[in-house]
């Protein structure tokens, strides 16, 4: 389906953890159109809303709804977190490339902090198509772990890690990756992504990293969201140095990008 912009209604606002909020939106056509790995741009026109839209992965969806799960980090997310049920939001989507299919064998999903949202619907989809799925949910500390129960129910095996050992293994999420993984999808802070990228280097395990970048448009027009290409397309010359996270991504193979 091609991109559209709809005005949708906020159905629910759930405080999932301190500073983390899930907004449930009534958005039937997006709920149908979105593919795992895609994202939306959320634009509020309410009081004090910032000028640009905010990119967000979708977290869950039902027939008529999608939800986004996010951490309050600045003006835009603070504004979104303050929206009451029945508020309106303009949502542009679906945006970005969906996850590419895994290789045969065990699929590992690695989510760090607020990197978990895009992985959840992917977990459901992968299980439905018969893959064995292992989720690694990591955070600095137990209070920052997100959606552990949802993943625990959705996947075959769910490993929890915290940097301080306050829950699950005392480890960085990337540290628990094992050779059982035949395809890896990771989303989280850049430090975690670099560690996963490092793990993948030299291995021939397809490893996908879902990136974030400051975005003005979300649909490829502004060239604002670039990441450095690890192996620039030589036919493009200097132009090939950067890839658009919103268009060529947000998910890249680990060897495609320099973080």
């Amino acid at each position: 389906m091609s991109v559209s912009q709809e005005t949708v209604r906020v159905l629910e606002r759930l405080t999932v953890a301190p500073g983390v909020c899930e907004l449930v939106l009534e958005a039937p056509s997006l709920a149908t159109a979105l593919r795992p790995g895609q994202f939306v741009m959320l634009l509020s026109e309410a009081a004090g809303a910032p000028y640009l839209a905010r990119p967000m992965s979708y977290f869950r969806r039902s027939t008529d709804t999608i939800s986004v799960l996010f951490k309050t980090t600045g003006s835009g997310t603070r504004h979104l977190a303050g929206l009451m049920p029945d508020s309106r939001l303009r949502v542009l989507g679906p945006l970005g490339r969906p996850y590419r299919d895994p290789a045969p064998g065990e699929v590992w999903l690695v989510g760090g902090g607020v990197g978990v949202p895009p992985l959840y619907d992917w977990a459901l989809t992968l299980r439905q198509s018969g893959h064995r799925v292992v989720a690694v949910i990591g955070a600095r500390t137990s209070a920052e772990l997100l959606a552990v129960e949802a993943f625990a129910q959705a996947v075959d095996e769910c490993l929890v890690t915290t940097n301080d050992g306050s829950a699950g293994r005392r480890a960085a999420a990337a540290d628990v990756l094992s050779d059982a993984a035949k395809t890896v999808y990771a989303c989280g802070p850049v430090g975690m992504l670099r560690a996963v990228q490092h793990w993948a280097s030299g291995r021939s395990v397809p490893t996908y990293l879902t990136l974030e970048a400051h975005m003005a448009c979300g649909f490829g027009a502004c060239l604002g969201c670039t990441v450095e290409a690890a192996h620039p397309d030589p036919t493009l010359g200097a132009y090939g140095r950067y890839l658009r996270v919103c268009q060529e991504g947000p998910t890249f193979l680990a060897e495609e990008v320099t973080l």
Partner: protein
Amino acid sequence: MSAQAVSVGGLSLKNPVLVASGTFGYGREFAPLFDLSRLGGIMVKGVSVTPWAGNAGVRVAETESGMLNAIGLQNPGLQHFLDVDWPWLRRFDTAVVVNVVGHSVAEYVAVTEAVTAAGVGAVELNVSCPNIADGLVFGTDERALFGLVSAVRKVTALPLIVKLSPNTSGPLPYARAAVEAGADALSLINTVLGVAIDRNSGQTVLGNRTGGLSGPAIRPIALRFVLEVAAALPVDLIGMGGIATAQDAVSFLQAGAGAVAVGTALFRDPWTALRIIDELPAALSTAGYQTVDEAVGRAVRQERERRDGRGRS
């Protein structure tokens, strides 16, 4: 010719609403969303003679009623434009204006020559680029600007548009230089230099440190540039800077622009230019005009009358 049709600098437009360079790529991202033939024109992303990589680091930052960008004119270069983008774009029934960037007069000339041969609709010179040879910016040095425009003028019979920088004490010296060197029209304005500081680090948000401010925040600055030039020089103008509604477009026409371009507003809503095209006839007739041309320069006429001592005291 419909009531919406206009001509600026010899370029015929089916309606006076274009999309601004750098906010519409080469049209590809928008083509799935609506029929590009509905637009008055497309000012494509700046084209340089060789591919440019653009800037490292964060490239966009948000500001109040606007944004900063430091894309650094990333573009796939002339050959790619000629081989890939132009053959694709030319199928649409809309004026294609090629925005040209370069680091030397020779680079601007080369791109202009090539796109002229290819048969595009018009050339727009983005003169906010640093001149690598002299370390100055074409757009903020009148003599460099005169030289650049004269050289480009020699190689093209297309409508030649020069896009002025607002980072000067005023447009007139530059507008005059461009017109004297043979420009057919001027685009006003490019982005305003600005900085955003990151709350957490205390450092600049943008990798390039400074960026170009665009969006509604700069609309009054753009209107000043349009009015000032329209009142002083008989040259066609394309107005841009923060246009988001049909009413905004009317203001630019009244200030003296013969056509307008929509930029940053497309990022919040990619259908903005279409909405403006649809709503412009009503906005014009509410304001008492039957055609676009009637609206153009209302404020300029007032300005001329003031100058001639016939206006309000």
